[in-house]
């Protein structure tokens, strides 16, 4: 359904006078999502997760240069096509109710989303009623303002905005920030259900445990690149390939709670060769020569020349 290959994004920053600075924020990023599948995108803040979403939705700032391939249902996702599809075939589940209009009843807002996706007024109204019922939101909730929603209710309203638009591809950007585990599980189950109905779902999160609850595959991002696209079961089966993926897994409190030191490089100071080379426990001279290509190791792609060791 969606295929992103070798995506690169560079921002041009203008300094004083004619000085220009190029900042490469996304390097060789890859991702693919099939219908009926949940693909989690996991990484630290600043790893490029949100920028990928912005690229797919066609909402990058004007000073961004994009190269590489983005296909949606086999056709290139040009900027015009992104804008045509946004809110219709491709929908975003926003991170917080901060994205809703604070002065408008939530029912009205969700209905407006449905109308913008191309439904007639009565059809949109019916879609809202149906969707709210599906998520156990009482009719009276439609007449509430965003600030009156409880945490769990707010999550269900946000999911509703994507469901009424009848999107084929749903992008959920950090849908479970600091929520109680029960609400997290409920929100994730809603996303899983959307995939079971045939939609493609991208779950963007910093929380690897949340990702593993529902994802079929997990794409791990680091410093603007995809370091590995693992199958969800690879984590508990000890098959994950990239040393950064392994570090994320090992550092969970229920595992060893042992982190690797250092921090992700910033776009103005990317290392030569492998982007993980300045923190990698396996680094060799060869790693510093080129950006590692995607290699197939134990049945999945990984950007590490020593992953088969």
């Amino acid at each position: 359904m969606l295929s992103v290959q070798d995506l690169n994004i560079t921002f041009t920053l203008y300094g004083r006078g004619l000085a220009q600075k190029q900042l490469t924020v996304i390097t060789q990023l890859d991702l693919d999502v099939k219908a009926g599948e949940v693909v989690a995108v996991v990484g630290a803040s600043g790893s490029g997760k949100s920028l990928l979403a912005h690229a797919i939705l066609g909402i990058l700032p004007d000073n961004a240069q994009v190269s590489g391939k983005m296909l949606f249902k086999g056709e290139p996702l040009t900027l015009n096509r992104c804008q045509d599809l946004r809110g219709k075939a491709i929908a975003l589940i926003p991170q917080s109710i901060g994205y809703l209009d604070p002065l408008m009843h939530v029912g009205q807002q969700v209905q407006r989303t449905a109308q913008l996706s191309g439904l007639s007024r009565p059809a949109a109204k019916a879609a809202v009623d149906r969707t709210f019922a599906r998520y156990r939101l009482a009719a009276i909730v439609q007449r509430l303002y965003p600030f009156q929603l409880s945490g769990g209710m707010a999550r269900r309203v946000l999911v509703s905005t994507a469901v009424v638009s009848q999107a084929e591809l749903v992008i959920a950007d950090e849908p479970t920030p600091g929520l109680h585990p029960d609400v997290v599980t409920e929100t994730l189950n809603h996303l899983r259900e959307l995939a079971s109905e045939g939609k493609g779902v991208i779950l963007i999160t910093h929380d690897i445990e949340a990702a593993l609850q529902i994802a079929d595959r997990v794409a791990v991002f680091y410093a603007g690149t995809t370091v590995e696209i693992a199958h969800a079961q690879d984590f508990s089966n000890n098959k994950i390939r990239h040393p950064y993926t392994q570090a994320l897994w090992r550092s969970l409190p229920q595992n060893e709670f042992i982190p690797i030191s250092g921090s992700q490089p910033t776009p103005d100071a990317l290392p030569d060769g492998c982007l993980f080379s300045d923190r990698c426990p396996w680094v060799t001279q060869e790693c510093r020569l080129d950006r590692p290509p995607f290699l197939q190791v134990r049945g999945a792609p990984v950007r590490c020349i020593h992953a088969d060791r």
Partner: protein
Amino acid sequence: MLIGKQLAFRYPHHNWIVRNFDIAIAPSEVVGLFGPSGFGKTTLSKLLAGYLTPTQGQVTIDNSPLPDRGYCPVQMVFQNPELAVNPRWRIRKILAEKQPPDRFLLNALSIHPSWLDRYPHELSGGELQRVAVARVLNPATRYLIADEMTAMLDANTQALIWHMVLDYVRSHNIGLLVISHDAALIKRVCNRAINLMQVGTSR
């Protein structure tokens, strides 16, 4: 010893958010606090850190009330560091608010020297949270409240920050209250834990 005795809080003409709550944290003790949303966890931490004045009850350190001016010996680190720092100050100034930053500490938290000349919005959430942590780890802090401190961070950054904080509180005899939804994290870092579902805060 940090003691909250019979703490109760409500805004005028509203229902009690917290009621009849007792807590005691000894120096160098790490205590977990968990329970569902709506149990007043964040209100409790604000009471203990002197951000809010209890409607009833009292917060004391070694039998003296919290100072009502100057640096509070009970400090908090929240989930969202953007709300805890002055957006118009450079990182260098934010860190120097209480005392000049200790090079060893910055190193241990992987705070890169190049960050010091930046503004908060120029750092990622994980980078800024390390700054927020470095800011409160100074000799004037005697108790620390970590309210969902690493809930927005990736697992590696989370573990990195916790190791640093735990080392620091142990070696400086600081008492630590850990508020988190993450049961595995509480189990990993705390000496004991309080379940608000059992003790209650408003009954």
